[in-house]
């Protein structure tokens, strides 16, 4: 479960002054649900997700993730979150096995538990062939699988994905989408950010449109279609963001 209440993050920049990267954002994600955060570049997706993952502290507002407060129980939040972003890379000089084992240990798992879990993940993700090779020699697909295994090693209840398909080819991107769906199937709480309309259409139970740090509209695909009288997600998005731009 993820709950955000009036979450606000302000960056102070010398040139740009105060930047409201997330501005009064309120939403809730239930277990077994995929919440899609749809927004253009600079909309505030990464910032919002980083606050939820406790990488950044909120300026105002509160959020609880898996029942823990992001501000005062950050370590417990992280223990229950798997965070996967385009910006979370692998240690190139470690092998996939060493990388995943390291994160298992950081999550307080015992070595036998890590070994058992790794065996299971490696079978599920079809990783056995490159498990003992160094990550810097991996193809993008292998890297993505290793990263997924890294986020799943401690079997977190909440999964946070920040544009996980960025820069991937169709096949790899589809594999990721399938994997996100699997997470929902296992009852995990999932939040997924993207700027690709078709992905939210296919994947998300609830869609939140974010622009300029603000959550402008929220609802299931059917609700949004009905409310804005359009079937195409892109048209809906332009209508919402355009309306905001005009006002």
């Amino acid at each position, binding site marked *: 479960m993820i709950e955000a209440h009036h979450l606000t993050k302000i960056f102070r920049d010398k040139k740009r002054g105060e930047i409201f990267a997330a501005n009064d954002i309120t939403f809730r994600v239930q277990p077994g649900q995929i919440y899609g955060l749809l927004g253009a570049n600079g909309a505030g997706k990464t910032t919002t997700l*980083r606050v939820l*993952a406790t*990488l*950044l*502290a909120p300026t105002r507002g509160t959020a609880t993730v898996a029942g823990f407060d992001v501000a005062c129980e950050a*370590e*417990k939040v*992280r*223990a229950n*979150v798997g*965070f996967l*972003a385009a*910006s*979370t*890379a*692998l*240690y*190139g*000089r*470690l092998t996939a096995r*060493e990388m995943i084992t*390291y*994160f298992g*240990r*950081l*999550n*307080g798992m015992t070595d036998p538990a890590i070994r058992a879990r790794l065996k299971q993940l490696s079978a599920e993700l079809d990783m056995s062939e490159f498990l003992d090779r160094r990550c810097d020699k991996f193809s993008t697909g292998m890297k993505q699988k290793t990263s997924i295994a*890294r*986020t799943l090693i401690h079997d977190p209840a909440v999964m946070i994905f920040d544009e996980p398909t960025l820069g991937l080819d169709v096949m790899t991107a589809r594999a990721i989408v399938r994997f996100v769906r699997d997470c929902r199937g296992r009852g995990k709480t999932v939040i997924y950010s993207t700027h690709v309309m078709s992905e939210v259409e296919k994947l998300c139970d609830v869609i939140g449109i974010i622009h300029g740090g603000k959550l402008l509209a929220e609802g299931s695909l059917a609700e949004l279609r009905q409310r804005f009288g359009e079937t195409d997600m892109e048209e809906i998005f332009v209508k919402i963001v355009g309306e905001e731009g005009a006002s």
Partner: protein
Amino acid sequence: MNWHNIVTVYLKELKDSLRDRRTLLSTIIIPTLVMPLLTFGVGKVASTVINKAREETPSIAILGGEDSPAVVQQLRESKKFHVVPATANFKQLITDKQLRAAVQIPAGFEAGLKAGAAPAVTIYHYEGELKSQFGVGELERFLRELRDKTVADRLAERSLPTTLAKPFDFKRENVAPPEKVGGNLIGGIVPYLIIILCFSGAMYPAMDLTAGEKERGTMETLLCSPVARVDIVLGKFLMVLTGSLSAMGFMLLSMSTTAFFAGSMFGGGAVRAQAVANAPTSESLIPMIDPIGLIGVVAMVVPVAVMFAAVAFTIALFAKSYKEAQSYLAPLMIVVILPAVIGMLPGIDLNARLALVPLLNLSLVCKEMLSGVWHWNYIAIIFGSSCFYAAIALALAVQMFKREDVIFRT
């Protein structure tokens, strides 16, 4: 603070760093090679050059002396010189190293000697040029002998004792044991090398573990783990410290090995090289090092290594990329080298004020300890102040790591 997590982070960083070529180079390979290269390389080259210079018979020119045939004749017959005909451009020839030196015998030199006048002989040479100095040395020895003989002749003529002109004699005797002499020679260069190697040993892991991780995108991955930031900093810091201390350890290890081998198989060249350089005694270039002094040095260096590790870590953490970190830390290297060089200069000794200057105090106290001098009050001040600086630097590193505008600097 959770020691289990700190150790987990540390062990992973250690494994990762051992696979990084730049870190290996600065923490193991260069420290191991520096002493053997210095002693065998530079020592060997120096002794070869000097021996070659000594084997050469210097070419000299005699200017004037037409009316002093006896002196000219003696110079020509001497095996120590090779007399070449004098030309008007002799100064240019000396500069061009075709001629090592020239000796100007004034007109009426021999007649003047007989008459009791004091004619002056001039030697032309090229200051600082080794072979020219050898030529000058031989010429001066020749003239000194000639003068002594003249004095002896004059005394004999007047039936006076030789002690009239030389009432007493004196000589030098060295009382310092060999390792103390070594302490003064090695004492200068060892602390200097230790300070530089400790810093460069900390510098590369520091950059790799902070700015390097930001650049490669692994910092955010690591921060996603439930481990507290303090534990991450301390684990990483311990790795940087390991780099710094291992640079010192490998340097000392290879120095001891070098000294051991050099003592047995490399007596000749280095000893001569040093004798020529006018050192007080002609002990080996790599003399025995007092092991107690060495232990003292290591103990004094540890808090400074902690400070280096924390400072390098903090500064590199601020940078966004490896390159940026390098551009911050490279100038800092000069700040570190400067006091180390000053400490190496002869004649600068430890006093109460210098004992508070970071790095310079270390350099000076190491020089003393290696030559067997133990000023316990200074040692206490220096150790205490180093620990204090180190604690501040480490606290700063932890604070910096908690700041999101540093970790997520754009």
